[in-house]
């Protein structure tokens, strides 16, 4: 192997009292993709910022060396470092929305980067800007260069960010969660683009991510970070074949997949320890199910678990190797009886529409409608989970809220146990509030920060007159907290004292307080780390088995769907394009959009043979949907007749319906 491009040795970074990066070592060869993997709060981003020397004001690099082609970046002066940034070392960030200046044209922003590094003449700069835009796969670059950031979609913006990063012809690109804010189909486009660029120019990529699937698909080697230090480093193939560190193994086990449907997910208890204290032993010891006595006292040394596969764990000490290689016993549990499959639907939604008027002009006249939800029909049976799947902007959250009358539906009917809910006023809706509840995506925003946890949970009991006195409500709240796996004493504390996963448990307890029968779960795990997500999914599954709840599970994450859902409805641009049982949808998808969606999801298994079906372009605006089938402009199999009329639903089987001309009924 030739000399590595990037060599990091003993890098330690502190922010205030917290040592966010501790004794970090990694090597990166030319043209290689190296992934830094870990949950939030593990110091991944701080590592990237340390490499760029762009730490926040309180941050300080304490020791170590970062050698790029033999030059120690930490010894360069700030002026010299500025010449390195962009020219040899470039970075792209997670949020393309906030990384571009909203009042500058795209072309001008890229030209700025080009001029900085090349200092070329004006004509050459323009040519270079177009070349870059072309390189990142932006169609019609001449026109796009003259547009402003708000005219571009999220995926396009990320491409522009990549174009800017490439302006200086860097040797190493640091990508900090480049696709986390994007939808799966767009994520597939961006990852594909990075791969192509790498093959063309021999760029090395340091990919920072928490998504095991993305790592499996793109990286050649990876390092797992935990609480500021690297605990395992290996080639991707070796890692996914046999993860060596207990943390890595549990991370893989906690991923929800279809194979684990019957079983509980291996959730990692607890959370990442705060980094502002001194560690004496292994940092994972508190959460490790197989911790040895010496784990808490002795810093584990590096062990070689295979060729180029290093792990920092006592289990690999000579006398323990057997224990280390034995896989953790799977927590198996019999598949619950498929109850309620044939029962009468509890909630029936027919042709639900939610349109938001667009006002324009002085007189605020209505000039158009945003058809957020445009004719959705669903059926939810008791004790079952219906997943509503789609990319952001497809109207799935609006549909969920309209179901609970949090947003007034424009048309259509929502029948709960035969009672019509659509159009009920605040007062007449109250008697149904008890049965229909909701859990939100962001556990940090879904609780009033000024209320005690006990009052948050007791709010519904009070509003619906189920428990009149406060002591009674607090007692009930404590019971509910126990039910969701939290100590009952938490009622006396404020929401900000809890972590994301714990807050989501509190939110679940709040929904459960009124004894509901249906819970709308609006992406309840997408703001959480994988290991915490597993805890919440396990909890939801337990609660369903114990209390016979029905879930309308709104999500964009198909692996969660595979694990949890019984039925699936796929939404595109306000309409359900395909629905059916989970096995039908995931194994025999018929609609081209469903197929593209499924193939775009990165799978945490590098050996998986997959034919990737890449979608071009972005979802159109729901205020001006394309004529005919909404999907036909992006559909790889579109025919001329697709543009004529929206296809009627066709039944593939008794439970499986598709809206596509290509599917012939009854097949």
């Amino acid at each position: 192997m030739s000399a590595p491009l990037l060599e990091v040795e003993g890098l330690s970074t502190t922010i205030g009292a917290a040592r966010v990066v501790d004794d970090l070592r990694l090597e990166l060869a030319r043209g290689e993709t190296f992934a830094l993997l870990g949950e939030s709060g593990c110091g991944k981003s701080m590592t990237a910022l340390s490499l760029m020397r762009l730490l926040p004001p309180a941050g300080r690099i304490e020791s170590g060396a970062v050698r790029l082609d033999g030059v120690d970046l930490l010894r360069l002066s700030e002026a010299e470092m500025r010449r390195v940034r962009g020219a040899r070392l470039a970075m792209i960030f997670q949020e393309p929305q906030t990384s571009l200046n909203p009042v500058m044209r795209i072309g001008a922003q890229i030209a700025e980067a080009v001029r900085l590094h090349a200092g070329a003449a004006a004509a050459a700069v323009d040519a270079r800007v177009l070349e870059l835009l072309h390189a990142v796969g932006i169609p019609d670059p001449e026109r796009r260069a003259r547009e402003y950031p708000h005219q571009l979609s999220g995926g396009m913006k990320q491409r522009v960010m990549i174009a800017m990063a490439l302006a200086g012809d860097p040797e190493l690109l640091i990508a900090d969660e480049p696709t986390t804010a994007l939808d799966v189909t767009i994520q597939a486009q961006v990852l594909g683009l990075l791969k192509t660029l790498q093959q063309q120019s021999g760029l090395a990529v340091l990919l920072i991510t928490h998504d095991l699937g993305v790592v499996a698909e793109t990286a050649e080697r990876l390092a797992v970070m935990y609480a500021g230090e690297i605990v395992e480093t290996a080639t991707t193939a070796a890692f996914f074949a046999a993860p060596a560190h207990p943390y890595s193994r549990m991370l893989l086990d906690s991923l929800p997949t279809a194979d684990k449907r019957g079983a509980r997910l291996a959730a990692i208890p607890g959370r990442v320890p705060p980094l502002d204290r001194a560690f004496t032993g292994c940092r994972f010891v508190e959460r490790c199910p197989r911790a040895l006595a010496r784990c808490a006292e002795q810093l584990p040394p590096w062990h070689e678990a295979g060729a180029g596969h290093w792990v920092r764990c006592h289990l690999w000490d000579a006398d323990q190797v057997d224990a280390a290689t034995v896989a953790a016993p799977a927590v198996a549990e019999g598949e619950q009886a498929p109850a309620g499959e044939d029962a009468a639907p509890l909630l029936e939604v027919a042709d639900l529409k939610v349109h938001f008027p667009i006002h324009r002009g002085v007189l605020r006249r209505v000039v158009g409608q945003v058809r957020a939800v445009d004719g959705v029909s669903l059926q939810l049976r008791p004790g079952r989970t219906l997943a509503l799947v789609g990319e952001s902007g497809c109207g799935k959250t609006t549909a969920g809220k309209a179901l609970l009358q949090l947003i007034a539906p424009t048309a259509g009917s929502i029948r709960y146990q035969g009672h019509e809910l659509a159009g009920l006023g605040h007062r007449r809706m109250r008697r149904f509030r008890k049965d229909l509840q909701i859990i939100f995506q962001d556990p940090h925003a879904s609780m009033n920060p000024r209320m005690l946890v006990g009052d948050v949970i007791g709010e519904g009991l009070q509003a619906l007159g189920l428990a009149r006195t406060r002591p009674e409500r607090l007692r009930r709240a404590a019971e509910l907290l126990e039910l969701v796996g939290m100590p009952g004493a938490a009622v006396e504390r404020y929401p900000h004292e809890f972590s994301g996963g714990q807050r989501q448990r509190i939110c679940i307890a709040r929904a459960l307080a009124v004894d509901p029968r249906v819970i709308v779960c609006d992406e309840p795990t997408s703001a959480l780390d994988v290991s915490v997500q597993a805890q919440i999914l396990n909890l939801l599954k337990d609660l369903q088995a114990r209390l016979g709840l029905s879930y309308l599970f709104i999500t964009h994450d198909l692996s969660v769907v595979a694990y949890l859902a019984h039925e699936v409805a796929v939404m595109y641009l306000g309409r359900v394009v395909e629905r059916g049982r989970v096995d039908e949808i995931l194994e025999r998808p018929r609609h081209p959009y469903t197929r593209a969606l499924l193939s775009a999801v990165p799978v945490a298994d590098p050996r998986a043979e997959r034919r990737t079906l890449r979608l071009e372009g972005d979802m159109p605006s729901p205020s001006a949907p394309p004529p005919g089938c909404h999907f036909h402009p992006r559909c790889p199999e579109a025919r001329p007749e697709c543009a004529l009329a929206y296809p009627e639903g066709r039944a593939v089987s008794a439970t499986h319906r598709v809206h596509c001309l290509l599917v012939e009924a009854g097949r």
Partner: protein
Amino acid sequence: MPLMPVVLWTDALLYLLLALLGGFAWHAARHEHLRAPWRRVARSRIGVVTLVVLGCYLLVAVLDSVHLRLRLADQSGATSAETRYSPEVLSLLDLALAGLRSQSEKTYSAPFATHLYVKEAIELPDGRVLRDYPRLVHGGAHLDDPAARGLDILWRGLLGALLGLALWGAILFALSAALARRRGITPALMRARIKAGRTEVPWRAALLTLASILALGGAVALLAGHYHVLGTDKVGEDVLYQALKSVRTGLLIGTLTTLVMLPAALLLGIMAGYFRGWVDDLIQYLYTTLNAIPGVLLIAAAVLMLQVYMSNHAEDFASLVERADLRLLFLCLILGVTSWTGLCRLLRGETLKLRESDYVQAASALGVGHFTIIGRHILPNVMHIVLITLVLDFSGLVLAEAVLSYVNIGVDPTMNSWGNMINGARLELAREPVVWWSLSAAFVFMFTLVLAANLFADVVRDAFDPRLRGAA
């Protein structure tokens, strides 16, 4: 009874405001999320320094807000059964500054002067008439030789400062003993900690500020008995007395105005943001219309109308003080009417954001009523905006009073206020030689108050603004 308490309208409102403040403090002390930002204020050095300064102003204003009428000294022996009270309404501050109030000269005199500022015809004992600067009746009257006043001023000033520092020392000992008891350490150790600046609340900064204020105050207090420290105005009234009396006016305008406008701004702003639709349209229409009328015009019209009413119904007012007081209250009201729109707009925007928040949605999904949602979820979460606006508005209103009085539509001309002092000094500045002390005194007092209020407002905003909290 030797005196009869008189409660003016503004006094009552000030007491109400203090009671509200006390109630809020008691409530906040029991709720961690309310206490935390105030703790941040108390731990900021600028926060405590400005608090000490504002506290001194507040003390003066409160002393000046306890009004009473003294019993008239019996002139006719004990013949009449009913006790008769003086028609003059005095405040505790007036009583404390009785010397300053009564020691008036004939006309202008410079600070620390022993002679008048204008020449007068003086009749000498031998019958000749001389045009010269006559000796003052009170200022420096104890001196045999006016040329020796420099030494006298220095000596009295130092003595006063020392007395002030002695008082400060007593406060220091009492405070350190109290703090030490709470922490369970010896007072000496506590004092060492304060001295080294190793306390959470920056007591050292607070005590140093207090020391300088007390030293200055002591010196001025001792000197004021024998000199006009800040000179006298056209009719010979002591300028220091005027400036101190103006403190109450300024503070009342700054605080009562917001108290008056608060309910309207809160109710309308939150209703507009929460209910939207026609309620929102109506309220927006109301405040955009109100905003389009020039504030000064509205104030001028209202104050002039009140003036006419007062002169037509002069018999309704028991005393000049009461009349002036009503005018002050009316000014607060009308300033409130013109200034609630800004806060209302801010609250509407914040409520629009909050009503879409997940916890409000969750509450509606639980069937909680609209007004409970407003009271429980929206109001507590917009209170930081209210507080920040109130503190920021305060200094603006104090300055507004000065400007309005300057154009004669402010407080009553008989009421002491910095605006009236500046208004009076307008012509003096054109005199030769110039009379600069009235204006300077008003300026220094107002400047100190507004600067302290602005700095305090910055600290409060930093402590309460959730966006800044994340950055800190």
